[in-house]
């Protein structure tokens, strides 16, 4: 087996597995897959140092398409799987991937608490405002007047979920929004997200070519955010509350909130010494 120093320098394609994605050609998720491979190269990681954890949905298929360790869990539960993995194995780089349904509907509760807990994870949400894998129902981020689903033919008529606002309020330590029309920018933001301690949230506007052809218009609607990141949560909150959802390409918030980690024991002992508590 090669010693690490002798292995050839890795290129982005070394981070792709030989499993070919089943995503529709034109899907925004391809950009994220490319961006991840580029980011891993720039971070200097090897595939075995990385674990990619996902739930259920089109975008959650990503772990199998990467040559890193992967976990394709059940619907909505990627964040707790990743939390357990990172706490047990702080040496690993743990990236969580999934969609807006997986993350904000069934996974909504875990999303809140993952932001609160602020474990060193990077959560990349490929937001296409629809449930693609189950044939096109509205998701929590779908606009209330979208009438394209048989389940909600008059639109959801519900206020859409605002992931970045909720993430900020709940305690996420790094927040950014990017567009799949700029994969290189996504890679750059991912490098920063992984490098920043605590829970990093990256929302990717990732159009669904099959169920939301209207989202092809996004590429003309997105614009580079006009200001750089802030470390002031209140300022970030004000920006987000007036944001129209199309400001992309830059980090919005980088905090220094305390990171949840496994602390070393203050009074270490052996397993046998635990018996002493019970002995009469």
């Amino acid at each position, binding site marked *: 087996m090669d010693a690490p120093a002798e292995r050839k320098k890795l290129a*982005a*394609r070394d981070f792709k597995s030989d499993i*070919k*994605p*089943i*995503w*529709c*050609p*034109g*899907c*925004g998720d*391809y*950009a994220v897959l*490319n961006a991840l491979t*580029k980011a891993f190269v*720039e971070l200097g990681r090897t595939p075995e140092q990385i674990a990619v954890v996902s739930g*259920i949905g*089109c975008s959650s298929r990503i772990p199998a398409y990467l040559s890193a360790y992967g976990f394709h869990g059940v619907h909505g539960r990627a964040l707790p799987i990743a939390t357990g993995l990172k706490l047990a194995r702080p040496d690993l780089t743990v990236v969580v991937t999934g969609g807006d349904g997986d993350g904000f509907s069934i996974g909504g509760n875990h999303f809140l608490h993952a932001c609160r807990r602020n474990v060193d994870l990077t959560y990349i949400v490929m937001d296409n405002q629809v449930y693609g*894998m*189950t*044939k*096109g129902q509205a998701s929590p981020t779908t606009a209330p007047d979208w009438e394209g689903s048989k389940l909600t033919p008059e639109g959801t008529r519900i206020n859409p979920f605002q992931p970045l606002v909720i993430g900020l309020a709940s305690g996420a330590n790094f927040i950014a929004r*990017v*567009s*799949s*029309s*700029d*994969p*290189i*920018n996504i*890679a*750059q933001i991912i*490098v920063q997200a992984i490098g920043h301690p605590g829970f990093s949230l990256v929302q990717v506007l990732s*159009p669904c*070519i*099959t*169920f939301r052809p209207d989202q*092809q218009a996004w*590429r*003309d609607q*997105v*614009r*580079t955010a006009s200001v750089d990141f802030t470390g002031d949560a209140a300022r970030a909150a004000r920006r987000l509350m007036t944001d129209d959802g199309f400001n*992309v*390409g830059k980090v919005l918030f980088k905090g220094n909130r305390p990171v949840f980690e496994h602390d070393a024991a203050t009074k270490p002992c052996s397993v046998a010494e635990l018996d002493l508590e019970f002995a009469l």
Partner: protein
Amino acid sequence: MSPSKGPNKGRRRAIHSVPELLAHALTIEREAEERYGELADQMATHNNTAAEELFRRLAQIESRHVTQIQELCVGVELPQRAPWEFLWRGAESPEAMDLAAVHYLLSPHEAVRLALGHEAKAEEFYRGVAGRARLVPVRQLALQLADEEAEHVRWLQDWLQRYPAQETVAEDPDPPMEQG
């Protein structure tokens, strides 16, 4: 779309050395080869054999271009750049076909048309480099590369004849399938 621009792009930094230019050129061809290969795989998975074959051919051609550029790089120490440090005018390198522009029913004609557009972008990129270059060797190399791209453009224009446009837009009578 107005592309997101990386930190360097606003400042209109120019390419001022041959190694820098070669690094860009090598990346252009490598990414073109990889992208065409990726698109060929997508088409294969979606049973669009005609488009798959076309993309594989384009990938092979780009592979030759990679070799050509590598020959130019012999003995040259290329600068290591992060992907966002390259000076593309668009979001990605000019010959990396836009992932959002394809469709599983893509016809070979449409694929060639898209490729043509990217080769033209590459030519435009090199001409731009040449125009801003301060050093003669840089300008000369950039013009040489631009001319090669112009050649590629002409090939692809020929191909358009070989793969005529379809009269009707491809249509799939089947609805999308649920996958879980």
